[in-house]
């Protein structure tokens, strides 16, 4: 019998049926990956295992872990199993740790709750475990607080808490989704190593086929609360049967059809741009120290061109975007938009901002929930001196919504009535309404499911063909950048380290950082061959 066997699992929360007849298994020393898009029930399947379900949940069927039916156990027995026999790693390392306790106390807590050791021994186990997950004592003493660590380091602490008592089963719910590509590959390597060393089973939940394909022994594809296909990883890749599996693979490596050719005239020219941030003062007197977030950056974006900007979090790509959008003054260099130059010490004026619009990552947070879509979409009109009113305004809103595949009638709805993909279409409609020449896409498709992402990429390609739009496409996701851009720039620590035609960069990267990024990025294409 396997370590974990789920048979005919059904789950309902209130009146909603979340899972229908889910069956899968995890063996000791093996990695089973559950893949699905949002709403597929993959996370809820995981929470059924350690019974950390939301209120009002009713689970039926069998969840056999270590020869006990988890669904039949009472709460005290479950508390004994959680943390000791089943460890869990979560998606959001930034919020998964208690901000007011040291990392040492939090890792030792796992040991102390289960009475496995005395306090000094528990702290010693915490130290050893933190060493094991790659947080050595010299830089990461037990007395560190979570806010002093980066996202990847926090995720290592969460993993240390989960494995401190060497559990038989580890559940990892999207453990690398919130992390950069290089950090992501390090965390995946760590999980794989721990599975081998401890012989534990790993139930790995992910939306990203590329991430799990390298490491999983067994893949389970879920959709709308059902398992559509499962099997050994190699087998699934070679002989996938279900149309949804095939569609998921296609969408993951989707390349939109782009016909537009860039013109020679530049729309945006950035020369030797410098952006400094003041840091907190170290002493009461003397100037505040500065952090140079963007250091001597120069590039040119032509009309009709799609330019990619890739880099990991903290590299300065968002700061660069904010300066171009005129949200912050620049400290050095210049920004030219359609030949009009903005010099150091100034922000980009309103008359130039009309030519640019931005689409942000978060389709949920970037809209005011109390306004109707019509008002949300027409917001950029404040940049115009003669914004249309009455019927003309209505016509402009309808036109923008229809351009992104929505309907004119959607203007009277509120934003909560739409899905994430629809919201991102509305965000693009909002950007289009004043007919800008340049759209800055700041991680605009990063939060979307692969199939929705493929649709949005197609939409962006079609819009640029039709309207001659230029895109500055900022993303940490290299495969998306490869699919949608003509040229790409790689940014690291405020500096552009490499720049060139997209295919050339991806095939023959020159800079070692670019090579490291590409090596870390999961690529399905390699696996399919």
């Amino acid at each position, binding site marked *: 019998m396997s370590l974990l066997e789920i048979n005919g699992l059904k789950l309902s929360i209130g009146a909603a049926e979340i899972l229908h007849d889910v069956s899968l298994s995890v063996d000791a020393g093996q990695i089973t990956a559950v893949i699905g898009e949002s709403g597929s029930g993959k996370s809820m399947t995981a929470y059924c295992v*350690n019974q*950390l379900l939301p209120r009002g949940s009713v689970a039926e069927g069998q969840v056999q872990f270590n020869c006990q039916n988890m669904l039949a156990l009472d*709460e*005290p027995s479950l*508390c*004994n*199993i*959680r*943390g*000791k026999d089943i*460890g*869990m790693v*979560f998606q*959001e390392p930034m*919020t*998964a*740790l*208690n*901000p*007011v*306790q040291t990392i040492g106390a939090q890792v030792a*807590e*796992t040991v102390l*709750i*289960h009475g496995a050791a005395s306090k000094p021994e528990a702290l010693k186990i915490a130290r050893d475990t933190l060493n094991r997950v790659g947080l050595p004592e010299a830089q990461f003493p037990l007395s560190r*607080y979570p*806010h002093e660590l980066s996202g990847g380091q926090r995720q290592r602490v*969460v993993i240390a*808490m*989960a494995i401190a008592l060497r559990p038989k089963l580890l559940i990892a719910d999207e453990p690398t989704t919130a992390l950069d590509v290089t950090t992501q590959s390090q965390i995946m390597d760590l999980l794989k190593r721990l599975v081998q060393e401890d012989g534990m089973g790993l139930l790995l939940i992910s939306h990203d086929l590329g991430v799990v394909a390298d490491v999983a022994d067994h893949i389970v594809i879920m959709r709308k609360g059902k398992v559509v296909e499962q099997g050994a990883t190699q087998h699934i890749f070679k002989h996938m049967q279900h149309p949804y599996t095939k569609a998921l693979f296609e969408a993951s490596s989707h390349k939109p059809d782009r016909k537009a050719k860039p013109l020679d005239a530049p729309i945006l020219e950035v020369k030797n741009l410098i952006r400094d941030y003041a840091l*907190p003062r170290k002493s009461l007197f003397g100037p505040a120290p500065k952090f140079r977030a963007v250091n001597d950056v120069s590039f040119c974006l032509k009309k009709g061109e799609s330019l990619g900007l890739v880099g990991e979090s903290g590299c300065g790509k968002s700061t660069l975007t904010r300066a171009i959008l005129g949200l912050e003054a620049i400290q050095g260099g210049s920004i030219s938009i359609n030949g009009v130059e903005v010099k150091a010490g100034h922000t980009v004026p309103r008359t130039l901002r009309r030519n640019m619009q931005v689409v942000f990552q978060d389709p949920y947070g970037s809209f005011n929930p109390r306004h109707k879509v019509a008002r949300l979409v027409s917001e950029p009109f404040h940049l115009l001196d003669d914004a249309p009113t009455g019927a003309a305004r209505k016509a402009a809103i309808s036109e923008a919504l229809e351009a992104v595949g929505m309907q004119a009638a959607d203007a009277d709805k509120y934003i909560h009535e739409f899905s994430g993909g629809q919201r991102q279409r509305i965000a693009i409609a909002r950007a289009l309404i004043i007919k800008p020449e340049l759209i800055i896409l700041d991680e605009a498709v990063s939060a979307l499911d692969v199939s929705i992402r493929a649709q949005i990429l197609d939409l962006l390609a079609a819009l640029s063909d039709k309207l001659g739009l230029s895109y500055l496409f900022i993303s940490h996701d290299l495969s998306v950048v490869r699919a949608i851009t003509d040229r790409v720039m790689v940014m690291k620590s405020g500096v552009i380290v490499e720049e060139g035609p997209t295919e050339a960069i991806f095939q023959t990267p020159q800079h070692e950082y670019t090579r490291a990024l590409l090596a870390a990025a999961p690529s399905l294409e390699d696996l399919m061959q």
Partner: protein
Amino acid sequence: MLIFTLKRLLSLALSLIAASVAIFFVVEIIPGDPARLMLGINATQDAVDALRTQMGLDQGVMARYWLWISGLVQGDFGISYTYRVPVAEMVQGRVWVSLPLAMYALLLSTLIAFPIGILAAAKRGSWADWLVMGGTQLGVAIPNFWFAMIMVSILAIKYQLFSAGGFPGWDDPLAAMKALTLPAFVLALPQASILARVMRSSLLDTLSEDFMRTARAKGRTARGAMVHHALRNAMIPVLTIIGLQFSFLLAGAIIIEKIFFLPGLGSMIFTAITQRDLIVVESVVMLLVFAVILVTFLVDITYALVDPRLRRRA
């Protein structure tokens, strides 16, 4: 933490100086000559001038500010215009009523609010939560003078458990505490209602945080996760309210002091204002400002003790 404390201390000193300047000059620009006011309208100009010299009113503004401030630092609050006794003596008797009353009320308020706030959050949606939410709504809504009179008529007059008013002094601490119990309880009730609601909502926010789920996944029971992870994280808004409540209770208890015939700071400052006894107003206001700034300082230090992320900022 040491640097944080020093920075907060510096900010405390600067706030005090700014407050003293503001109070002094506001009182300065109020029309009316205190000397003429004290001697009455029939006094001769010579007599008024003589009194002005005696009171130091004929000196320059800066000199008088310096005199006032250096006096305050040494505990010399000046002489009351109306009663011709040192303000320090008047204040001293009053502070030992108002300060214990405020602290007593705050203690009661915290003792009531914490358990019911935690209970309501832990049993969200249950009858207990419903009861706490309804009860605290009532607690905020009931006017405290009315509640005070009800309490007096039942507990003091009918059952004679507490005294109906007056203050016997601290010679007999037990009697003093007994005299302060009813007013403190009446003062505490609305404060406790507010505090319990803040505690509940802050805890509910914390309970839905990701790290609470992490704690459960480690094997903590629901109660264990609440005690070890939620409470401390939920304390910041609660501490803010406690700080504000203490400042309010110290001087804001005029009505309750009047109802229970307590010789506190609130009623003293009220009388001083009606009598234009500006030196008393000035000094008592300064004293209250000092208390408020000190409480703010203590709350800031407690914030930093509770949340390590705040220690770096100052």
